[in-house]
């Protein structure tokens, strides 16, 4: 299968797909049309349950089971990365060299770490009111913690970030989501049904029944998952080294 032949197969396949996509695009209803049946029903259902951010209501109330699936994919991806990036026999852990970073960058990182953490928590907490939610806020919180790696070196980050705790947090986030679902079942209605808590007053933090709780659970899980992910990547990139002393591994 020479490279030239592959290029031809790619060209033919690409043109075919392009033609099909163009034909399909021409039959789609025009961009900006007024026919959105699902959208209108979703907005009505979200307002009925007094959740002001309809997207959060769709994610954590009307389609909460799909979000459980998304969250499990995230959990499985992190699990796979942790298994793949473990330290193998022929590798040794090297203490990261201390890195001297310029003073302004260190001060900026020190000031921005809590502010970014607060912004992330704000985005998680107001998931069901203004734009935001557990998924986005979790990533902001995780990135905030890694300002320490940027402001100083990996050793400082390791000191403040016990990976075991975040792995437990990751699992706890997923478990909290499931427990809230089963609580709905135990409460007499369906799994992950939003009939457990009162819907509260519109546009306040406690509105929307279980939506804020599911939001917080997803926020915790995404934050811990991203921290564990970056921990494994930083370990591999900065610390883990092929131990030259022992026999060479097959690849070299």
């Amino acid at each position: 299968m020479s490279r030239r032949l592959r290029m031809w197969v790619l060209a033919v396949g690409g043109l075919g797909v392009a033609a099909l996509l163009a034909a399909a695009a021409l039959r789609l209803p025009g961009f900006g049309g007024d026919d959105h049946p699902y959208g209108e029903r979703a907005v009505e259902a979200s307002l009925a349950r007094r959740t002001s951010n309809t997207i959060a209501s769709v994610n954590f109330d009307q389609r909460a089971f799909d979000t459980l699936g998304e969250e499990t994919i995230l959990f499985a991806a992190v699990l796979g990365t942790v298994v793949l990036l473990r330290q193998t026999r022929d590798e040794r852990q090297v203490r990261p060299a201390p890195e001297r970073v310029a003073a302004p960058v260190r001060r900026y990182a020190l000031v921005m770490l809590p502010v970014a953490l607060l912004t992330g928590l704000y985005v998680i907490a107001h998931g069901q009111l203004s734009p935001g939610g557990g998924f986005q806020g979790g990533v902001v919180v995780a990135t905030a913690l890694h300002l320490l790696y940027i402001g100083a070196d990996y050793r400082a980050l390791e000191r403040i970030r016990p990976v075991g705790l975040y792995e437990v947090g990751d699992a706890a986030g997923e478990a909290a989501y499931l427990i809230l679902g089963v609580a709905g079942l135990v409460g007499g209605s369906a799994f992950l049904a939003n009939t457990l808590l009162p819907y509260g007053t519109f546009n306040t933090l406690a509105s929307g029944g279980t939506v804020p709780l599911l939001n917080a659970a997803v926020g915790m899980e995404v934050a811990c998952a991203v921290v564990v992910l970056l921990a494994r990547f930083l370990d591999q990139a900065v610390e883990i080294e092929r131990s030259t002393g022992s026999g060479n591994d097959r690849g070299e």
Partner: protein
Amino acid sequence: MNGWLWTATVLLAVGFGPVVWAVATGPVGRRVVAQNFGTSAVCLVMLLLAQGYQRPSYTDLALVLAVLGPVGTLVYARLLADDLSPHPPHTNLLTAAAALATTAVVVAVCAATGPGRAMVKLLVTGALLVAGNVIASRAVSGGYRNAEATSHG
């Protein structure tokens, strides 16, 4: 399409358009500077769009970008240190332009929103953006490297 959306369109075309070209071609130093300027340009576009669509809740986007944008540029300054150190880019002109544009947009949007906590939020966003932009571009242009001999992180 009111004046705010027009300004956003012009800023997007004039400010962000060249960034896309500058980040795809040329030396690494210039690419990182272009990415840094792109963050500021998009943050300002977000503020203008929030005002143009009369949706104050969209300013959260500009706030998160003002917090995380410079962090991304510092990641490049840190992990691409080997490629940046031979010929560090000079960024003072672009940083000054970004700071000027930020103050202009923030003042205009604050004037439109009127006094109150929303105005303080806009000022905080603008301050975070300018501070982040200045620190990130100084870090990229090696402004700190010759001040202290640092090994690569």
